[in-house]
């Protein structure tokens, strides 16, 4: 087994896939950060042209699929992408869903998409001086997707979407967008609209139809920590 360390970005990951393929490495394990290991470790540098190179071999939709699976952000997913990548290089398709590793990709993508979609609704922004600030702890790497989404929606605002778990943030400031390492949790204060929102949330409930189990099904507790309307 060989550990392959890649730079923490999709381009970095793609570079590692191609490196492993070109050098015919057996049983590679793809890692973002170096963990102590008994196995041989190779650090793959980011190739600036990797997207162009990848497009020469892979269809656009395959690259998108790999990207979504990369966002799943677990080693198992990285390794299934690699196996699928090898399969694709040989067969020029990924339609054989009887292969476990190909079927898993559908699962990773679904899970990532579901979380992206949930947070489009569940993310809560706080109004600081001149910036809207949202913090949360997603399971997958979703701030890039959410950043792009809110960039279109709040084009005249500044915002920070802070992934506390990965210590990264999607930052949109004076119409420039970037993903950055972000370590410091900002202070938020209560404002009038938060109170109004809580009042509204209470008032629209039909008490005669209370069904907490159904509510838990749709908003599992792990989402609620950063949601204004739930007491934490």
């Amino acid at each position, binding site marked *: 087994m060989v550990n392959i360390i890649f730079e923490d970005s999709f381009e970095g990951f793609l570079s590692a896939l191609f490196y492993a393929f070109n050098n015919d490495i057996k049983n590679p394990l793809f890692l973002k950060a170096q963990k102590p290991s008994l196995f041989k470790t190779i650090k793959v540098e980011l190739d600036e042209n990797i997207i162009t190179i990848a497009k020469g071999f892979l269809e656009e939709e395959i690259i998108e699929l790999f990207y979504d699976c990369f966002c799943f952000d677990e080693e198992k997913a990285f390794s299934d992408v690699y196996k699928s990548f090898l399969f694709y290089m040989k067969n020029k398709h990924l339609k054989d869903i009887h292969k476990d590793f190909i079927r898993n990709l559908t699962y990773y993508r679904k899970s990532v998409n579901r979380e992206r979609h949930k947070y489009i609704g569940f993310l809560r922004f706080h109004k600081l001086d001149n910036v809207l600030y949202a913090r949360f702890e997603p399971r997958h790497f979703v701030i890039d997707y959410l950043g792009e989404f809110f960039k*279109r929606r709040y084009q*005249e605002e500044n915002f920070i979407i802070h992934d506390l778990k990965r210590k990264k943030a999607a930052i949109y400031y004076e119409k420039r967008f970037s993903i950055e390492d972000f370590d410091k949790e900002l202070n938020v204060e209560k404002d009038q609209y938060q109170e109004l929102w809580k009042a509204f949330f209470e008032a629209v409930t039909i008490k005669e139809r209370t069904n907490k189990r159904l509510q838990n099904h749709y908003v599992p507790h792990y989402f609620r920590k950063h949601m204004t*309307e739930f007491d934490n």
Partner: protein
Amino acid sequence: MYIINMDVEQKLRILADGAKYDVSCASSGGVRETVDGGIGNSYAPGVCHTFTSDGRCVSLLKVLFTNVCIFDCEYCINRASNNIKRASFTPRELADITINFYKRNYIEGLFLSSGIAKSPDHTMELMLKTVKILREEYKFNGYIHLKLIPGASKELIEEASKLADRVSSNIELPTEKSLKLLAPDKNKDNVLKPLMFVKNLRDNSEKSIASASTQLIVGATDEPDYQILRLASYFYEKKILKRMYYSAYIPVPNTKHIKVDKTPLLREHRLYQADWLIRFYDFKYEEIVEKDSNLDLELDPKTAFALKNIHLYPVDVNKASYEELIKVPGIGRKNAMKIIQARAFKTLEDIDLVKLGISIKKAKHFIVAKRYLGYSLSPEYIRKAIIKGESKGHSYTQLKLW
């Protein structure tokens, strides 16, 4: 009827409370993009921003402009003769709440309904004023659903359908007889005409015109599901409505004509399932509900259909067309596509279906894979097996539905 000075929070509580029985909350299907210098866009799949403790999705700031009303509809909590606290927003107040909620990502937009204060036109004008502040001053392009006030003038309805993404006018009751009985101030014309008028606009305009929906109260009067679904099919066929909402009647104090105490929510749920089959699965209403009767409460309408038409089954998953596959209880549109994709590589066995993540609990009675899965038994037996299977061990999935 009295209005006292109250702060915005009190108003919001009262006017959200008064609007909550309108079940529509969809924010899907919008096509608006952010405008230069503006805020907001619509997101086609729709977004749920939170769920209240009754398990309902909150997508829009759903409020009444005012709960003052000159009408006296018996099923309505806001009717003139009901002794409740009354309140009204100003257009500015409501526009500001909307935009500030939107910036904090609490909502996809606004759902604005209203009691009828003074006159239909006066009310509609105030609602439009609110929406114009949002659309024109704040350049807000998020989702807006506007209720068309029965009896409002054509000009105002036209304006509403240009500013909003969705407009609606609640038919409330499936027959004019019931409407007369329970809503003496409304008539078929003033709830239906606005919808027809909007349809004509849509057919003859280059600009984008809001889609339309309506709501029916289920169980306050004795029309059967057959009548309700026939009406829904008519609206879908003529492309008058994009959606129909069904609301199980919730008792309102001091009613004279309404005898029932409570409609089972399950009936509402079955109507939605049937509606879905009509809109997305090519079923005809006559196929799923028998003349002058209600849907089967024990079984979902697709399963009920299958048991009545057992000669159409079993369906061979390795050969059946997409259209045949989606008529199998337990197999939806996505799963049908998965099956078609997967069988290109090998003949499917039951275990393959499970691997694909398809639940065969229900479907097994109606399909053939490489070998036969069902027990080739009578519809009566399958019926019992499915009902038993659902009440046993699956109480969770059952509970979550209503």
